């Protein structure tokens, strides 16, 4: 009796594992099939240059989406990431005269600070994350525009470290791609191996229960919003290095792309379930879509919007189907 039950439990766990694997590999599957389609249709798709382009172009969004994923896992949402990217880039560009190190640290510090503000408002003041970050987003955008007097700030070529961060290579690997790889591994490790990570999942799943069991939700929330703010700043710095300029109007709408990538990766918006690597796949899927539209090059912009919206919807439905099968 007991044996059959434990066997049943084991079986159930196996099938759940499989389903979860599919949820993450569902997007991977889509990504691969899209890639296969593209390599037949466009002879230039499978060139090393194009593939590197895709990875490099999307590394900033990937960084932002990582922060978003962690916030979403904790049951929150962060709409301020786009504005923070702009702010981080602008601050870095303004400080670039003082040397790369100052610029990079300054850029990241400024957004980390705003991440802390988000975290405090959400945790201490118990405000709803959607609203808090909606308004810190517009505040940060306003700040970025104000301190630059609405202009883009060129990064002087003297700030070689900053430029290297955005455009450099180590061996044949672009630096931004390397940063993304490191960050995702670190975040994966943090989420699945550390106490903090477990607590992120726990409060995202059931905050009240976690609180009663001795998790301090305020501290965890503060941590995730700070983390997200920090990553946005980093993405902004990398972007400034890549473009050679800090732009107050940069990264408009990245928050929705980041959310879309997270959801495409199968992380549930209610929190508590999901992982980071699928988000990366989601980012690449989004990026590849843009890349293909460019390679095709003849679709009018409005049809591009229709295709994007339709495609996103399709992925979401697909994910839902897989999740329901569980």
């Amino acid at each position, binding site marked *: 009796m007991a044996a059959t039950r434990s066997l049943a439990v084991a079986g159930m766990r196996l099938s759940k594992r499989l389903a979860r694997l599919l949820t993450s590999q569902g997007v991977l599957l889509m990504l691969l099939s899209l890639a296969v389609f593209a390599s037949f249709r466009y002879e230039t798709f499978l060139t090393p240059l194009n593939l590197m382009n895709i990875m490099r172009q999307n590394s900033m969004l990937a960084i932002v989406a990582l922060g978003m994923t962690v916030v979403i896992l904790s049951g929150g949402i962060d709409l301020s990431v786009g504005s923070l990217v702009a702010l981080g880039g602008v601050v870095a560009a303004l400080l670039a005269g003082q040397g790369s190190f100052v610029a990079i640290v300054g850029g990241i510090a400024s957004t980390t600070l705003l991440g802390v503000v988000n975290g405090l408002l959400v945790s201490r003041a118990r405000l709803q994350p959607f609203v808090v970050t909606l308004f810190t987003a517009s505040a940060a955008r306003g700040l970025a525009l104000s301190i630059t007097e609405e202009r883009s700030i060129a990064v002087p070529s003297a700030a070689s470290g900053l430029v290297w961060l955005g455009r450099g290579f180590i061996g044949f690997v672009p630096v931004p791609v390397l940063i993304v790889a490191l960050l995702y591994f670190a975040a994966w490790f943090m989420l699945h191996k550390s*106490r903090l990570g477990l607590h992120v999942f726990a409060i995202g*799943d059931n905050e009240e*229960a976690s609180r009663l069991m001795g998790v301090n939700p305020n501290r965890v929330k503060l941590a995730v919003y700070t983390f997200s703010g920090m990553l946005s700043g980093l993405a902004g710095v990398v972007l400034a290095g890549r473009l050679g300029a800090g732009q107050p109007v940069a990264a408009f709408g990245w928050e929705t792309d980041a959310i879309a990538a997270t959801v495409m990766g199968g992380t549930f918006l209610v929190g508590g379930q999901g992982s980071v690597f699928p988000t990366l796949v989601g980012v690449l899927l989004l990026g590849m879509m843009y890349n293909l539209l460019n390679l095709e090059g003849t679709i009018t912009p409005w049809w591009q919007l229709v295709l994007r919206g339709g495609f996103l919807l399709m992925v979401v439905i697909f994910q839902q189907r897989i999740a329901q099968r569980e």
Partner: protein
Amino acid sequence: MTQATRTVLCMRDIKKSFSGVSALRGVDFELKAGEIHALVGENGAGKSTLIKIMTGAYRRDSGVMDYGDPVTFQNPTEAQAVGIVAVYQEIHLVGFRTVAENIFLGREPHRFGIIDRRRMNTETSEILERLGLDIDPRSLVSSLNIAHRQMVAIARAISFGARVLILDEPTSSLTETEVSVLFNVMRRLKSEGTSIVYVSHRFEELYAVCDRVTVLRDGCNIVTQSLATLNRLELVCYMLGREPEEVSKGVTAFAGRSQNAVNRPVLLQAEALKYKKRLDGVSIEMRHGEIVGLAGLLGSGRSETVRTLFGAEPLEGGTVKLEGNLLSLRDPHDAIDAGIAFLSEDRKADGIIPELSVRENLTLAALPNLTQWGIVSRKRQNELVDRFMQRLGIKATSAEQKIHELSGGNQQKVLLARWLCKNTKLLLLDEPTRGIDVGAKGEIQRLIAELAEQGLGVLMISSEVEELVEGSQRVIVLRDGRSIAELSGEQKNIKAILHVMAEGARQEGVKQSRTDNE
């Protein structure tokens, strides 16, 4: 025998109010070393609130708490750190994390912040084994049934090696065997010097394990006394604040009710119900005015049976006839239209709409009847609410109070009223008296019997076998998703039911339930 003299925890003049409504009005409470201290009282007396103040889950408005030194806990973590651990009334676990993660949440074995999962899992296995539980530490909590979740919550609390262990109605969803395992553990902990606060509405349990009892009523402590010197009747009187002669005798309020519905017309015929792997041939036939009990072990499919009858789960086979009419039950709406009502076992998830008022919750199902041209008549709504709040004795500051602010028992009454204020023919009750105090329980049982006398058919699930024996005319026993026996008359006794539940229907003289019909 432990000499229970030293005081571990002492609370004086604790006050707490929620947005102006007093839950506690100056409670004193004293817990001695190595005792099991029962905390009893009607629904809404303030037991859970007192417990949450002990652990820092709520902040008290005033009063002192002495735990060696005067202490004020800001949150449950601080209380845990000094050895005060609680299992709360609503099971508080994190669904999509594993059993081991839940048991160690907030105090994971770790090195530089990195969790030692192997140690966590092995220690969890040990803890579960000690409780006689066969659960994989790595399975997700959401995949467990309520009883197992409850046991996991208890295991978690026990594993702290706490000085003070608080159990708020831990047994409300456990079976007898699990309860006895729990009691053995409690006795052992007691012998090791742990003090336990134990909340339950089941008196046998109190007398089985508890040393002393504190009775709360309306946010005040009425008495603290050794249970050995207090008999049941006195205890009930303290709880209800009434004189002994007012309090009726008998185990349940069903006792002595007329039980005669043989001549009434047939109400429900459900045959060979099938649903996923959980139900595989359940047949039920019942008449107007009949109370039929549904017995079975945990997971035997009782809840699924009533849920499919109500259209809450899609039926995958079998037929349901009400008064001879074949029903097609696609969703609860269809069932309600046909005159079926359903009270779920999970009040919080399936019953109440927390942010809405008592009035809205009570009239929710009846709303279409109170509506003309799409507009809800406030007047008729109020009349209805007044009538039923009075008839069921619902305790609330007003009909406009939010339902989540009521205590569990009163919430249950509101939910029952939700169906009574509509014309129903068949009432499906899943654990209608779970977590409800004696007073309210009696009222609800009386009410059920009264309704049956008026011609309503009642199909009732209960884990308390006495309730089934005394309350129902017939008891149908389920096992592994099948109806295996039907007991009535002489056969309908506790021993027989338990036997069939556990062993199947091979006992002589027990009528086999018919899957083929006459």
